[in-house]
């Protein structure tokens, strides 16, 4: 499940923020913000994707680095949301 979730998130990032550039290694613990992979409008696109793909509801207060700054954190966040 986690691997599948992470793959889906990685695919979204490659498609939308790297415009299909597969050459980026994109490890699961890489900070998306510090490495300038995602900007502020990108985060909103990411949230829209997560809500639709994983049928979760993301509150404004959830949109913080602790939940969304790495692929690992995003997948953990999705798991917590789905369990709730």
């Amino acid at each position: 499940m986690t691997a599948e979730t992470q793959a889906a998130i990685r695919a979204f990032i490659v498609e939308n923020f790297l415009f299909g550039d597969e050459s980026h290694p994109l490890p699961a613990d890489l900070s998306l913000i510090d490495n300038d992979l995602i900007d502020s409008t990108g985060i909103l696109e990411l949230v829209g994707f997560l809500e639709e793909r994983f049928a979760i509801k993301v509150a404004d207060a959830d949109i913080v680095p602790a939940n969304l700054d790495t692929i690992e954190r995003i997948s953990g966040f999705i798991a917590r949301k789905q369990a709730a």
Partner: protein
Amino acid sequence: MRIEHYLRNSVVRDGTRTAIVAGDVRLSYDRVLDLAARMATTLRSRGVGRGDRVLILLDNGWQAAVTVLATWLAGAVICPVNPLSAVPRLVTGAAGTFEAGLEAAPFAGEAFPDTDLAALIYTSGSTGVPKGVMLAHENMDAAARSISAYLGNTAADTILVVLPMSFGYGLNQLVTAMLCGATLVIEKSFAFPQAVFERIRDERVTGFALVPAMAAMMMQARELDPSLFASLRYVTSAAAPLPPAHLDWLRAFLPHARLFCMYGQTECTRATYLPPEEIDARRGSVGIAIPGLQAEVVDEAGLAVPPGAVGELVVSGPNVMRGYWKNEAATRKALRPDPNTGTIRLHTGDLFTADADGYLTFVARTDDIIKSRGEKVAPKAVEDVLHRMPGVAEALVVGVPHEVLGEAVKALVVATDPALTERDVMRFCAQNLEDHMVPKIVEFRQFLPKTESGKASRRLAAAL
């Protein structure tokens, strides 16, 4: 006055006061002066002397603030560069860590004149080649005093800077804080607005500088809690026109904060501000000249036009730049004498109207520069990259209205390779351009709109 004296004066007033908060780091004025003086010694020992330009390739953080102040203590000129630009890739042979630069003994200081250059800030030119705006200490000093006067800044303020300090509007937050002995809270990015808003609450921020794209993102939030912003005394908006809907929303959402709509450009830091009490009476206006500056709307001959008529905004005053670095042609075009008095005036390149009381309203730019997310994008710079792309015959780049960004970059492309996709074009641009310059929209066409003389025309493309 030179800007580093702001720091020294604030230390004399109360060195124990918190100057900078960034992440977990809190630095008093005493500590900031000590760190900056140590870094100044390091700069001097590396051969940096009076008038030398120091490229600063740092994200927002306490290190960037200390480096800026250290450069001024050393008598040198800051040249802040967006770390996302191509420039850092050109720099090799870095000599040690940032922390190693803080090990030297503090620089005792030297008296440099305030007519020396303080900053060289690069801004997009319509030809695609960036121009280096030369600001002397006295120019920045005049701007900072004028701005802090109308904002009413004091040592009791806590100012948030989330805008890049490599950008005039962001840098100005640091300068204002140092001038007033206020606290500056530095945030790296607005990617997680909620985290920034919690920072505003926790640090009891009183002054918040934003660009319209940030207001647009706040409006889109679903259950934004107004109590996060209870400490705000004022909000400023600049870098691009604030749409009326955003303005109305901000006022309704933050009724206790005074909202200042402003207009400026790097060449003079700030030109106008709308006093908050005039917002209703002067809808859409960016106000009047800031204290100490003269602003006028003129025709092509440089003569004032009557109220209501469209003309170019020209400004004169102590905050106007010295010129563009090693670019006399551009300097002569921007700084021209008033045909009546001979006073040198900055031609902003922006069209305005003025009402009978002198309140100014932005109409349009005279060049093709796109303003996306408050940042300038020269279409020519994007087109140059597209023209280098294999499979592209021709391209034109224009700005189109965008809900959040103000304007979005749109590329019209004539492809020689039928397999070329939008993604391919965006990816190539992302690899060769700064983030905000990458087209959001790519459209393939058989032909580009051309003028009768056969020149591809952005104006015709924008009208499509």
